[in-house]
């Protein structure tokens, strides 16, 4: 094993821990907030829908990099300063929850209208219809795209490197930096290849799970 591998591997591994934690926090927060917002988007009230719609359009419309830069560099100027990890988590959650809301809305609205109408004919109120008829069916339909979004969000954590969070990508970049400046070769292929490999190994099972759910749905 070449001598450069040891220090690089341990440094990148510590970055991986940060990535895992960021992914966990962002995913959970996005799912929770997204489910709430997505359900709100199906309410009869136009005002509620409009407010949530603005949130969704803004945080889905902006590139995540711009959101991260804004939270990290701009908010402190008006007094809101958070550390790098929190900035990354908040930024990813804003984006993730907006997308999750869309996914949930789509799932709820894909339940055939006949179901809701039949339930209404049987005397269910709107909350009752949602709880006993619509949401259970929507949950099955939401799983494939939800898992897809989880995979996507896990990958998007790598963007936190642009605000300097020491995640797996930033750690590998700094290792390549150190190796380059100390006069040797960059070893970019094996290092970046390893990062790609780690993400692949983590995300592939989740993608397969999503596809399995999708097949069960049909």
């Amino acid at each position, binding site marked *: 094993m070449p001598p450069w591998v040891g*220090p690089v591997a341990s440094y990148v591994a510590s970055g991986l821990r940060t990535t895992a934690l960021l992914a966990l*926090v962002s995913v959970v927060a996005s799912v929770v907030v997204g489910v709430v917002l997505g359900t709100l988007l199906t309410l009869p009230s136009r005002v509620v829908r409009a407010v949530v719609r603005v949130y969704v359009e803004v945080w889905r419309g902006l590139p995540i990099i711009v959101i991260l830069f804004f939270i990290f560099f701009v908010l402190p100027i008006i007094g809101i300063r958070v550390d790098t990890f929190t900035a990354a988590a908040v930024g990813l959650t804003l984006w993730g929850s907006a997308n999750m809301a869309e996914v949930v809305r789509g799932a709820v609205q894909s339940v055939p209208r006949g179901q809701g109408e039949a339930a209404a004919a049987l005397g269910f109120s709107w909350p009752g219809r949602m709880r006993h008829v619509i949401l259970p069916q929507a949950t099955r339909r939401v799983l494939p795209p939800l898992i897809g979004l989880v995979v996507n969000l896990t990958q998007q954590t790598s963007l936190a490197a642009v605000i300097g969070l020491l995640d797996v990508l930033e750690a590998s970049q700094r290792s390549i930096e*150190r190796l380059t400046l*100390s006069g040797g070769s960059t070893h970019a292929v094996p290092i970046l290849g390893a990062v790609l490999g780690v993400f692949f190994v983590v995300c592939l099972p989740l993608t397969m799970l999503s596809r399995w759910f999708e097949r069960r749905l049909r």
Partner: protein
Amino acid sequence: MRSRFAILVSAATLLVVAAGCSSGNSSGSGGAAGGETASAAAGPVDVGVPVPDEVKSRGKLAMGVKCDYPPFGYVDEAQKNSGWEIDIAHELARYAFGDPNALALTCVTGSNRVSFLTSSRIDLIEATMNYTVERAQTIDFTTPYFDSGVKLLVQKNAGITSFDQLAGKSVITITGATASLWLTQCMKDVKQVLFTETSQALTALSQNRGVAFAQDDTLLLDLAAKNQSLQVVGDAKADSPWGMGVRKGDASMLSWVNAALAHMQAADFFWTRFQKTVTDSTVQQQFAKYVPRPGNTLTYPTSSTMSC
């Protein structure tokens, strides 16, 4: 179905709580405050001016330093910040708290160092920053502590020996660096290929993405020493002293840092550390006049440093 939902929701809540408990301390946006283990003095050193409140309340000196600029600010194999500027940083921390490791170092680049300062993520920039009139409009500069000019790093067989030969060609530069500012102002026909990190620029040069890498002579000499196929050419442009940066109007910080720098100069701290950092005696002599020593004080130029 309902119970499954309930389990999902409670599991999610537990995870959020657990993650929240453990995510509190993982803000790692900088190298560890390490380097040489300086002997901890008995207590803080009085430099004649009180330590600013913002520094005292942090408990550490929050500084932005370079992590890609050997031998002044870089990261060694043990992932520790090292270099001449880092030594100065440790000394500043020792003056403030009596502990040279009371430092929170953040890696900054030419493009984001001021943003880090204005967003109060750091209180002091010590990042190989040349004084320019334009920069002085946004931040306040301390007394100078070194100097550099812009030169070119080229491949030995490329045939480039001066700035005039760059006309109409691609030149690699670093975003926000003095070299980039000077080229933008004085050689508009040069196509700048910008990068944020030195290693990216160096790799780009070896891949012939540009005919030269324009940066501070202090950095280029170190890179050329480690790469036999590269050499430094050109006469120094935009020669200007380095200063540390504080937020505009932060008078308490400015006066404390200036007093601390004066204290270091009187103790000949800069030269002692410089000799340990730059061991080549010819290079030492070349830069000796830029190191503050008793009897050798640097000053900022009164006119613009960006003359073509």
